[in-house]
């Protein structure tokens, strides 16, 4: 479903070159739950951004649902993204000026969903994350956990094939973190591919597969089918 072949990403400023991803090869199957772990600055977020089509690799190929998108233009990436990707961020990234309902709706606006269907799907998504009663609240009126649940609702409302979660529990306490993880696992169980960057071993343990990164390399890039339990044991 997703396949990275010898992917490299170099950040260039005037006099410094940073190798963020170094010859990364990775295949992700439909419906898989993949956790990416590694220390700060190892390239996790870069990898996630490329997987989510908000960034492009410097070299290599990226087969996204059957198309090589490594050389796509910004506009083409936008079209692919619209078709299949949902995001959940560590810092929630809700739009301050929109209320809960409207924030979730943003995910449907650019996908040209008719307004009555939009309303129905937004209500269903909020119901799913247990925030139907907060639909008219502004983000500032919600707790961190609630805000992240809004973000999850926003990611799932467009029924994407892939959801990318960048440390979704990073800013949350354990109880809220668990709740969000449960929700993500549930979405994955219903068939959506889930790729999550996390620092937490326990949350990574709930994934089908864990890949570890260090300095832009995938540590276990040969082992495609290591059971999650085994990975924890290392």
């Amino acid at each position, binding site marked *: 479903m997703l396949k990275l072949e010898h992917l490299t990403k170099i950040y260039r400023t005037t006099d410094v070159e940073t190798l963020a991803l170094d010859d990364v090869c990775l295949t992700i199957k439909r419906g898989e739950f993949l956790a990416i772990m590694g220390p700060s600055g190892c390239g996790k977020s870069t990898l996630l951004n490329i997987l989510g089509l908000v960034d492009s690799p410097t070299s290599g190929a990226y087969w996204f649902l059957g198309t090589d998108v490594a050389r796509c233009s910004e506009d083409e990436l936008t079209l692919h993204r619209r078709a299949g990707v949902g995001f959940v961020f560590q810092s929630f990234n809700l739009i301050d000026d929109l209320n809960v309902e409207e924030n979730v709706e943003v*995910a449907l606006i650019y996908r040209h969903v008719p307004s009555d269907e939009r309303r129905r799907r937004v209500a269903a998504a909020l119901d799913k994350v247990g925030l139907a009663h907060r639909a008219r609240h502004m983000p500032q009126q919600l707790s961190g956990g609630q805000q992240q649940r809004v973000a999850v609702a926003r990611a799932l409302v467009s029924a994407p094939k892939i959801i990318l979660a960048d440390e979704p529990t990073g800013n949350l306490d354990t109880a809220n973190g668990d709740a969000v993880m449960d929700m993500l696992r549930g979405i994955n169980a219903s068939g959506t591919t889930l790729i999550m960057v996390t620092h937490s071993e326990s949350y990574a343990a709930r994934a089908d597969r864990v890949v570890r990164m260090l300095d832009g390399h995938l540590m276990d890039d040969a082992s495609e089918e290591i059971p999650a339990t085994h990975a924890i044991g290392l």
Partner: protein
Amino acid sequence: MFRNYLITALRNLVRNRLYASISICGLAIGLAAVFLIALFVRDDLSYDRFFPDYRNIYLLGMEASLPGRARLYRDSTPAELAPLLRADFPSAVVARIWPQSVVVRHGDIENNERVQWADANIFDIFKFKVVAGTLANALTEPNSVVLTREMARKYFGTADPIGEALELGFGADDGTPGSDRKAFKKRLFSVTAVIEDLPSDTEMEVDILLAGVTADSPIARIDANPPGQDGFTIDSLTYLKVPGSATAREIRNGLPAFLKRHKSRLFALPYLTPLLRPIASLHLAPGVAPSRGHIQTIYAMVALGALILLAAGINFVNLMTARATRRAVEVGVRKTNGAARRHLIAQFMGEAMVYVAIAVAIATVLAWVLLPSLNSFLDRTIELGLLTDIRSVGFLLGISVLVGVLAGAYPALALSAFHPATVLRAVTLQLSGASLVRQCLVVLQFALLIGLLIATGVVYRQTHFALTEARRLDTDQVILVTDAPCRGAFKDEVADIPGVRGVACSSGSPLGMAVSLGQVKAVDGSYISLDTHSVGYGFLEFYGLKPLAGRFFSKDHPGDAMPEDPQASTRGAVVLNEAAVRRLGFTSAAQAIGKSTSLDPQKGVASEIIGVVPDFALDAVQKAVPPIVYFVYPGLQDIISVRIDGDRAPEALAAIDRLWTQAGSPRPITRSFLDQRVTALYADIVRQETLLAVFSGVALSIAILGLIGMSASMSELRTKEIGVRKAMGASRGDVVRLLLWQFARPVVLANLIAWPIGYCLMQQWLNGFARHIALGPWLFLTPSVAAIVIATVTVWRQALVVANTRAVTALRYE
């Protein structure tokens, strides 16, 4: 999608009240100024276009290019041309208007008024709006009169005095053959129609239209007894209405042959050419009356409007981009959810449009509120025309969309270019390059402000200089009595009134009220066209002038006055001004004394030069003082200058009025203060000065608004940096200095742009004056210092607030 954008825009606006109100207020002030300028310019460009068919209406005037003088224009031409024009160009409707000052009376109301004798077919050319009666045949009968609504109300208290009688008293001293200088007749005229008052955007003078066929009318006298080749009059305004521009061209091309065919004596003069001009072009036609419009003024106003709009637009762009980082998350979220760049551009452009729309609404109200003041300042009747004029509405919408697009474009492009991968990592970020753009815009804005301040200063200094120069003449407490009998006892009696300190007679020309030219013999024997001014004994002394050489006219020398008998063998004495001394070819004032010249090219009768007077003229600064020859000719003196004691002015004025009535004059007295006339002469540059001051004020307020917004957003953006600096040991003073310098720097840079451009433009403006101030360095330094002080004071408070923030708070900010 649109609803979502609108919600975001409005909530963002409400949340950022300070920035939103600064952006909107600045833009509203700028737009209001632009709307008013546009209304003024539209008014100036639409003179006389309210007449139906104005494109086909022409005025026959003439142009005089006298050797060594600026070109002169006259709207009036000989009245005797009209019947000939009708005969030779039958497709044109030709009608004359002959303005004259007469005494108008009805019951107790009596005034000197300007009336207009007119041909009956004048209404075939000008379709005036009728208030009462009908215009067809309104002036066909002798002694019929058509009034404007204002005049009807003034004399009859109603707009419908049809059939009522109006008494007119006039001396037939209009110079037409058979007119009698001494006769003063009273005649009754019957009101046949009342027309609507003309709007202010006309060059036509229409108050009281009298039937030209009346026997007492100069038009009737000319028609009954055309001057032929014996002479000419040039007091009639001759209007032509043609079927189309082709006919106008035909007539224009045919005019020289026409004039030759009819042996026009006037146009046989080599320096006169006839001019056939559309009435709509008269207001901005070059070199006519000073009250007319100037295309340069229009250019200047349009430029000012553009500059103010630019300043307001810069604020707008700056604040929108300064706030941009706050919107970064939104951009990132929208992009990751599939928004293409064009969606975001559309969103932010739309947001700019919302701001602009609010600003336009406020500006429209502002313009509406301020328009009456503008009208009284300009003495116009400009209307907003929002509901009536489709072009006004179009302009309003057009300029709003233009401003919205221009001001919204940069923020929209910059914001929509945010990379989601970057912005969503939740670190504060700056728009790349935006800070440079912002700095440049602030520099530009301050350059505009400093430039306007420089211009205001220069114009103020020059106005002051001009008025002082004009008052080198002792014009204090002088009243002028016009149309006065200088030869009767009246003048001597006025001199005896307690509270009157002096009396002098002259013609209108030395007081700038008329132009009078004559041929004067130079040293080399040739005749040169110069200004010749008739003054009374003691006139030059009255105005505080002293001879540079020789003496002034004196009653003790009977030979000084020009004899009334043209056949006399002596021609009196003359006094020259310094310019005339040079022009006639004398090497010095002293050298000219005792020499003879002549004002009589036909017979060459000599006049002795008895004195030289310093150059002076009331409108001295606008044009160089021309060479002038002064002489004493009582027949050409109809203005009495009276200097009164300021403390006893009311009694003295009452006594003068009483004497006037006792002298048995059939006309009411016409008197005015000379100072007011001088001020009127300079009304144009005083008006320019006021306008510039107002616009500088507008630009200043926009710039201050911008600075407040910028400093607030800057210190917000730099909070973290300042926290770090403070943690590293920076004092409050260091931080304040840091922030102040950030805003002082663009002001300093702005000077480098404003100075050279301001210098060139103002030097050019000053060159339009014969005498002007020098562009001293302080005229440039003062505005610059003022701008820096203003910037510092504005930013000061914000800088202090930031400097007072404790380091830990600043560091936790994010």
